[in-house]
């Protein structure tokens, strides 16, 4: 049997396979070396980084919901400088693409973070988180207002030479409009979706379970919504797409590829099974082999629509 070609490319970055890990669900990568070989992954996306470290929200920060979970971590992170100093040098030892996920409380803070990353050796690209619903300063406004989205992308585009992936919020009426905005402002690729805003209530205490009141919904529950938005964006713009949302296995990956994603990110699944992302690479390889599909690129955007009757 021929080994299928898993390589793909997004935003000018060549990935050995389409499986990346999603921001905030894979730490800085190094936490996973007990569980999997990082060299197996197409790429990994760091926890959201800001110019300065952040402490995040008070607990409780996570709660399970049907086939999903809500989180309101509040973007706790070590900050770009500590990342560059302590994490990146270790990550360079691995043959996988490292994408830095970046956010800021203000436009200036976005630019600052992008500039700090500079052209750091070992950072293959920047993913702009314009869609975190957890904190007032977390970028919600950038992610849901087309003008603000365009502006923050434009200034980040000027601040860095690295490939720029814009991660869209799903909490909008018209995802195609946001995608076109992102493209027009200079995004090299689009990743989607970030989490959906939701809330869980502790009915005994009559309080929100999360201290932050609301949180972001992730996990299999959102997959049908994320697949739909991927397909919508695929029809709206020609720049490549990274599909995200509830991916648990190779079948789910193929769903996003067919809908138009050139690569995917595995998020919540890594909490459930720490080795999930690497397992999915193996599964995907087998899935393609069994069906005699020689290249993953055959699947990208390969959805066929039924004849309209």
């Amino acid at each position, binding site marked *: 049997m021929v080994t299928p070609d898993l390589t793909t490319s997004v935003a000018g970055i060549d990935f050995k396979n389409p499986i990346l890990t999603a921001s905030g*669900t894979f730490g800085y990568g190094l936490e996973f070396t007990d569980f999997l070989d990082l060299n197996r992954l197409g790429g990994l996306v760091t926890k959201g980084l800001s110019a300065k470290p952040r402490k995040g929200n008070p607990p409780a920060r996570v709660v399970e919901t049907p086939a999903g979970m809500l989180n309101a971590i509040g973007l706790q992170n070590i900050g770009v400088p500590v990342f560059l100093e302590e994490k990146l040098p270790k990550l360079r030892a691995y043959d996988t693409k490292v994408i830095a996920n970046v956010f800021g409380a203000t436009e200036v803070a976005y630019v600052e973070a992008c500039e700090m990353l500079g052209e750091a050796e070992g950072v293959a690209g920047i993913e702009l988180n314009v869609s975190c619903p957890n904190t007032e300063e977390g970028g919600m406004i950038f992610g849901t207002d087309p003008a603000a989205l365009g502006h923050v992308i434009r200034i980040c585009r000027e601040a860095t030479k690295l490939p720029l992936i814009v991660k869209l919020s799903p909490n909008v009426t018209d995802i195609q409009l946001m995608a076109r905005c992102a493209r027009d402002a200079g995004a090299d690729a689009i990743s989607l979706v970030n989490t959906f805003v939701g809330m869980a209530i502790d009915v005994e205490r009559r309080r929100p379970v999360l201290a932050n009141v609301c949180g972001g919904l992730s996990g299999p529950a959102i997959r049908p919504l994320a697949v739909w938005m991927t397909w919508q964006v695929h029809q709206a713009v020609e720049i490549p797409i990274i599909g995200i949302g509830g991916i648990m296995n190779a079948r789910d990956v193929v769903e996003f590829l067919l809908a138009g994603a050139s690569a995917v990110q595995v998020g919540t699944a890594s909490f459930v099974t*720490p080795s999930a992302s690497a397992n999915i690479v193996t599964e995907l390889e087998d899935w393609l082999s069994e069906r005699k599909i020689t290249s993953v690129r055959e699947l990208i955007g390969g959805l066929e629509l039924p004849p309209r009757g």
Partner: protein
Amino acid sequence: MILDKTVNVVANEALGNGNFLLTFAEETIAGEMLPGQFFMVGMPGSGILLRRPFSVCGLPGTFDDSPGDSLQVLYKVMGQGTQVLSGLGTGAALTVLGPLGNGFTVPGPEVTPVFVAGGIGSAPYPALTRACAAAGCPDPVMFYGARSAADLPLLDWFDDHCGELHTATEDGSAGEQGLVTGPLLRWLEGRDPTTYELIACGPDPMLHAIRNIAVPAGLRCQLSLEAHMACGFGVCIGCVVPTHGEDGAVDYTRICVDGPVLPAEKLAW
């Protein structure tokens, strides 16, 4: 090294009032695990997404009648996950991630371990009792409280293995009526704090009470904490508790890797 294993249920014994003692065998995890550490337990095919955290209750040798490499979890049915767990029979498959967390610091050989347990908070003490004995500590003194008698699982075991056992129940159905802090405070009174170390595990209000007893008085005190956890191995940053940071400001510390056992004075609750 943290391992992710699929194991089969060896026994899942009902102890009454929704308390269960679950036994499974996993040699490699068993060989590395310390009292106070915990597992993330997944229930494949149950539709439950996240695994659930449970302390190790029994290590090999903790319970006389259990097989060599077996591990025990003492749990209480609280919600959907523990409900599913309680329905599993012998042979059912579980996924087990562990050992996780830091575990207890076993007191020195001259120091009496003083266990405070609230209900199912007694779970980590059997394994710890054995470790204390192995370290040459005096027999532990245990304060064991709960809502009522039915919520004092493994009471006989503790009676056999602790130096003293003081019980308290809110409804008076076993031991003294009231909270466990009652008998504890009387015991502490006038005692030399260098001769013992407090170790507490139980519901948050109890831990707060113990902290408020221990910290102002400068008593040595380890608390085993709980939090909602998504991952259990440090990456979701979901399980934090406020602690006193170096700069005096509040830090958020992950219970799953820097805990679940933390010194009482560290907490900024």
